């Protein structure tokens, strides 16, 4: 992935595997942001809609429910439209509108693909992909030990799905850090 800023636009240049991962991330976020807190799987709900603060604030069950609904409405209202725009950009580079090629295909079907995001929307972008990281970590029990596993040997000791989660989390971390660095300039 390469990231540069062109005036008020972040331009991500993604390889095919990177584009597929990001498209998958955006698809998952679009699906999950539409679900209310109680409709999500328990681990994603705990990651995004933790009740801990409501408990320490002494909120009643009704107040907590309302508070979480506001939080959900905020996430959905702020992010959904943008996520769909960005997913459409990623899909538009595919040969037939959706990319069914294998990640390990040695001959890329498309040229490196650009994702263009206005700097005004960068906050929404990084917050959303961070949400995916949090949900992936919660669903696959990724904690400090797994996050500190950087060598291939350490990673290989994890089951495949947890390895995939760790790799996705780190790839998205890279995107977040680069985005923050470039927008700060």
């Amino acid at each position, binding site marked *: 992935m390469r990231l540069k800023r062109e005036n008020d636009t972040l331009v991500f240049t993604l390889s095919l595997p990177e584009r597929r991962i990001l498209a998958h991330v955006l698809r998952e976020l679009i699906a999950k942001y539409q679900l209310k807190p109680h409709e999500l799987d328990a681990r994603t709900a705990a990651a995004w809609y933790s009740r801990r603060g409501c408990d320490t604030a002494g909120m009643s069950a009704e107040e907590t429910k309302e508070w979480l609904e506001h939080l959900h409405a905020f*996430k959905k209202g702020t992010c959904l439209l943008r996520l769909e725009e960005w997913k459409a950009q990623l899909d538009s580079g595919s040969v037939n509108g959706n990319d069914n090629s294998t990640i390990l295909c040695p001959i890329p079907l498309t040229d490196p693909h650009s994702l263009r995001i206005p700097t005004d929307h960068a906050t929404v972008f*990084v917050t959303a992909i961070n949400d995916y990281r949090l949900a992936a970590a919660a669903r696959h029990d990724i904690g400090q030990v797994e996050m500190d596993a950087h060598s291939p040997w350490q990673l290989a000791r994890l089951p495949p799905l947890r390895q995939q989660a760790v790799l996705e989390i780190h790839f998205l*971390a890279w995107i977040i850090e680069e985005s923050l660095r470039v927008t700060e300039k």
Partner: protein
Amino acid sequence: MNIETLPELDEKTGEKVKEAFEKNWNVIVLNDPINLMSYVIFVFMRVLAFNKEKATKHMLEVHQQGKSLVATETRERAELYHQQIQAHGLSVTIEQSS
């Protein structure tokens, strides 16, 4: 000349008004293994309007001590910070300061 005065508040109402304006609610951000340091700094700058130095100081407190008291406010404002910080994915609680 007849000067109208506001009726005096009864004690209970007065207590409630005082409570609403009292800055005695702590906003505490907790550590977690997933959020990036740079992202935490970004959230502090964006939500709490910290400058970079202050945001970094509080981020390091979260990272090294497990938590940081980032604001002490009225209940209403503390709840707003709570929602905004949690909307950005950070682990946060609010509690009445002792």
